């Protein structure tokens, strides 16, 4: 500004100016801030409530995951982010006291519908866990197991092909191609996690859920997984729960912040990390006590 010819620059488009935080909202505000819905939703959750016996863990969460996007979910321990993630492929079904209410759809199809086959659902919506958990089998069998039970390969050659492609996509192939018959549990932590990712993508899922996939890994293994996530999003839709905010900032396009079972704020990752609109989000990502 300053000088009389300040306008010589012409009008500056809104995106160059950035979002304005003057609509900053305080902690008393409990409606989700931001835009939880997207045009090209791969999965969509509407008014989801999750209970563990009489304790409510998720309160009325509505959120879309867009096709080929990486959505990260952040929030303090016990905020419900992992519970929400697990309800996306009905992993909560195995917890007897857990009850999921609301509507969750994959490509518009109700995943809690009475005719839904959960085995098939979990093949379409794969999962990678916090701690690498390879089967106590060979590296080859770890990857081949899923395709075999789903009948995806009709010959040994086809299976070899699936195993190789999956391991390549998980950028593990070069390290294990000569030791495919060794036990998967003999690999390093970072390699085991990539093996688990290879196992998840071997059944050609559409969505991959990751629950803190790097929390047990060193920075180099973490960087490799993050690099991998970036490549995988070309092919899959990814939802990742992470405690590392830098990781969420690096790998995702959209970020959702959960607090005490509520979805507080969701938006473009860049906006969430530079100009969050909800005070709780700001407090969390800047390390303030609320």
């Amino acid at each position, binding site marked *: *500004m*300053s000088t009389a010819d300040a306008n010589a620059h012409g009008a500056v488009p809104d995106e160059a100016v950035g979002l304005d935080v003057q609509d900053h909202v305080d902690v008393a505000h409990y409606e989700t801030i931001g835009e939880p819905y997207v045009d090209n939703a791969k999965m969509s959750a509407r008014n989801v409530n999750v209970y563990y016996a009489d304790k409510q863990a998720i309160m009325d969460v509505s959120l879309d995951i867009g096709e080929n996007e990486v959505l990260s979910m952040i929030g303090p321990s016990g905020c419900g982010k992992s519970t929400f993630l697990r309800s996306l492929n009905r992993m909560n079904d195995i917890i007897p006291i857990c009850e999921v209410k609301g509507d969750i759809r994959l490509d518009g199809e109700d995943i809690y519908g009475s005719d839904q086959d959960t085995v098939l659902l979990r093949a379409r919506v794969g999962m990678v866990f916090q701690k690498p958990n390879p089967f106590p089998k060979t590296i080859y069998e770890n990857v081949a197991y899923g395709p075999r039970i789903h009948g995806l390969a009709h010959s040994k050659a086809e299976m070899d092909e699936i195993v190789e492609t999956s391991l390549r996509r998980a950028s593990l192939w070069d390290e294990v191609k000569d030791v495919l018959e060794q036990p998967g549990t003999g690999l390093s932590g970072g390699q085991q996690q990539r093996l688990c990712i290879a196992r998840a993508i071997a059944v050609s899922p559409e969505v991959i859920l990751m629950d803190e996939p790097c929390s047990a890994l060193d920075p180099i293994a973490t960087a490799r997984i993050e690099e991998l996530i970036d490549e995988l999003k070309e092919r899959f839709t990814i939802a990742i729960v992470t405690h590392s905010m830098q990781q969420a900032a690096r790998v995702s396009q959209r970020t959702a912040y959960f607090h005490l079972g509520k979805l507080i704020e969701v938006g473009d990752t860049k906006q969430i990390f530079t100009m*969050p609109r909800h005070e709780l989000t700001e*407090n969390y990502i800047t390390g303030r*006590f609320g």
Partner: protein
Amino acid sequence: MDDNLHLNQHTSQKYNEELEDIRSRVLEMGGLVEAQCRKALKALVKSDIDLAEEVATSDYKVNDMEVAINARCTDILALRQPAASDLRVVVSIIRMAADLERIGDEAEKIGRLVKSLEKGRDRTTFRSETKHLGKSALSILNGALDAFARMDVAAAIATAAKDPEIDDEFEALTRLSITHMMEEPASVKSLLKVNWCARALERIGDHAVNICEEVVYLVKGSDVRHLSLSEIQERYL
């Protein structure tokens, strides 16, 4: 700092202290730069060669403070990975320190020019005009630092709005110099020096406006450096 930035509420007490430290350092630097400018203006108006000498040779203190502030800011970026308002605090302080350092350079320049002005009537040419120009520039600098200390967006915008007056005064002084130069070609050399001093004062005003813009960025989160004053007023007042 203003309550809505909550700089002292981090879980890490040491992080609170680090942010508070860069903030107080940049304010201290602002105070030093302000003093340099005041002395430079006084030296110019009173033709005080000793004071001019002092201003011209003590700019290193301002430079040292800029280096120290930048070092602390890079430490915070590397070790704390600040986000949101904390990140804006660090980024705006880095930019403010650069502007303050440039203001220090302008004061130094005035000190050197005053020293080189010939004795006699050269030193008194346009004395009241430059004095007025200098006072306006100093008041903008003071207002900018004050707005930063209080995180006051309205005050920052009001302060920045005063800058066009300085620009006008400088234009008027330049026109006056040109007339004098045409009437008395022998005075061109010294009149140019006086004009350079006026130019330095005008630049001090511009850098102070940059500091006002940092206050808007820090509090509102929007980069307004290339918006016109009226657009900024429309959006934030």
